[in-house]
């Protein structure tokens, strides 16, 4: 038996995608997060030509939700697989790999990966802030590990990723113009999409006039804070061939990371060798090994863009540009749709369409390979979707039509 035969390569396919509308933070009320999850699941099953009677598995990430209550609400006949990747947004793309693992193992047949998000009572932008004055409610109480970084004012992911971005600038000469190219090209894609929350073009002047949030990151380097839900249905390659849409095959998926990447931005002690990276290098290596193809095969890349510099670092970690050269790579127009060599975040990403913790990236990858994307890459054969540069696990998913 070859190594390939022992992996999930080409054995499963994404067959359904569904989503609620996307909302500005808090605007999805009075719906509940679990209600939105249910709407997205039903929509994704319907898209596949399946029903709840076919559903038998859940594959979640980023602390997920209570699948028992959703299964009870929806009347799922028999839940055979309900599992979750640990960590946060790093697991987004990997949740489809988890679904595939459940299917290839024989434990389940039709597995849905879901993210639902409502930032009404709390917001991720202050997720590491202390409670502050009596009565203030922001996030969890400080942890013993957080005690070493929060007193300095690192209160949200943006403040922390800014530290990685600053190091990248120092090492490689990366500039704010490079970050701006990520923000502006992503916005240009969002402008054409009815689902996008940000539909006004962004100019370089507007970028540089925007307020600085945490140097070197300004307002437009930050993703949106949103509500909404996205679901993706995966099943076996055999069954996929009988369903409504042409199958979008799971070529490879990987998740995890170096142990000493660890909690990443919430300890900032990662080894110097990969401090100024996205943490994705070991994921990329395993992804390409399983796939049997490399970055040169990718037609469109949906790279988790919570902060624009982290797109640059993923371009390096997946081998689209040498380490340290992602800035010039984007400056040359390579990530622009439709004429760049590697269109990136054709859906408008977390930065300009909606932030549903990365599941919109998977949805867009599927639409690109079906040939139904709003900003379609002509003849796209392979699409890469990634989970967030974050604490372990980070993750990736390579799909093909």
């Amino acid at each position: 038996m070859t190594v390939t035969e022992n992996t999930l390569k080409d054995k499963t396919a994404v067959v359904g995608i569904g989503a609620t509308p996307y909302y500005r933070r808090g605007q999805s009320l009075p719906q509940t997060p679990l209600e939105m999850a249910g709407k997205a699941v039903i929509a994704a099953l319907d898209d596949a030509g399946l029903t709840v009677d076919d559903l038998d598995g859940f594959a979640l990430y980023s602390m997920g939700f209570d699948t028992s209550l959703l299964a009870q609400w929806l009347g799922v006949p028999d839940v055979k697989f309900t599992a979750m990747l640990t960590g946060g947004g790093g697991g987004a793309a990997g949740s489809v790999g988890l679904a595939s693992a459940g299917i290839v193992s024989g434990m389940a047949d039709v597995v849905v990966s879901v993210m639902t998000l409502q930032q009404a009572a709390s917001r991720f932008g202050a997720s590491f802030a202390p409670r502050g004055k009596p009565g203030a409610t922001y996030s969890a109480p400080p942890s013993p590990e957080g005690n070493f970084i929060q007193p300095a004012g690192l209160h949200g992911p943006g403040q922390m990723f800014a530290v990685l971005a600053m190091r990248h600038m120092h090492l490689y000469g990366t500039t704010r113009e490079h970050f701006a190219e990520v923000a502006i090209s992503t916005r240009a894609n969002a402008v054409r999409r009815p689902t996008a929350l940000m539909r006004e073009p962004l100019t370089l002047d507007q970028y540089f006039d925007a307020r600085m949030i945490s140097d070197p990151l300004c307002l437009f380097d930050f993703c949106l804070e949103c509500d909404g839900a996205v679901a993706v249905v995966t099943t076996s390659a055999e069954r996929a061939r009988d369903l409504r849409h042409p199958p979008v095959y799971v070529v490879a998926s990987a998740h995890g990371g170096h142990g000493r990447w660890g909690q990443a931005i919430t300890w900032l002690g990662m080894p110097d060798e990969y401090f100024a990276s996205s943490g994705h290098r070991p994921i990329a290596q395993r992804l390409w090994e399983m796939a049997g193809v490399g970055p040169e095969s990718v037609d469109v890349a949906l790279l988790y863009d919570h902060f624009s510099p982290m797109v640059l670092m993923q371009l390096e970690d997946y081998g689209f540009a040498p380490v340290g050269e992602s800035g010039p790579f984007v400056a040359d127009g390579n990530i622009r749709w439709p004429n760049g060599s590697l269109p990136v975040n054709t859906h408008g990403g977390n930065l300009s369409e909606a932030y549903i913790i990365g599941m919109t990236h998977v949805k867009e990858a599927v639409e690109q390979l079906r040939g139904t994307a709003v900003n379609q890459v002509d003849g796209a054969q392979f699409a890469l979707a990634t989970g967030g540069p974050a604490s372990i696990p980070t993750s990736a998913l390579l799909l093909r039509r």
Partner: protein
Amino acid sequence: MALRGVLPPEVIQLTPNVFTQPFWDAAAEHRLVLPRCTACSAYRFPPAPFCWRCRAQEVEWVQHQGNGAIYSYTVVRHAVIPDVRDALPVIAAVVELPGTDGCRIVGNVVDCEPEDVKVDAPVMLDWYDVRAGTAVPIFRLI
């Protein structure tokens, strides 16, 4: 004279556990101590129950003078919680301590302008007395 470039005391809440308590006990006395593995001599930070290199548990606490160089930093300018608004901007720096297997301490660089801060700039350790019995590390440009 009041420090410039630190957060107000009410947003600094420490929640030590058995592994980190010795660090904060020493900090209250304005001493920087780091846990070093008694088996293989690797420093570990933040304090943890296992050596990342040899998996041994026991540590000795070694005092460090705290001078180092800025490994990276950010200038926090926008308040994500209202309680810090009047204190901004603050410079949050990651300082690598020489001779410690790459241990990095995060602290504010105080009493300077953001424009004066650069990666690799040498800094010296100082302390911010948040309240009686609680001090956190801060840094000054040398």
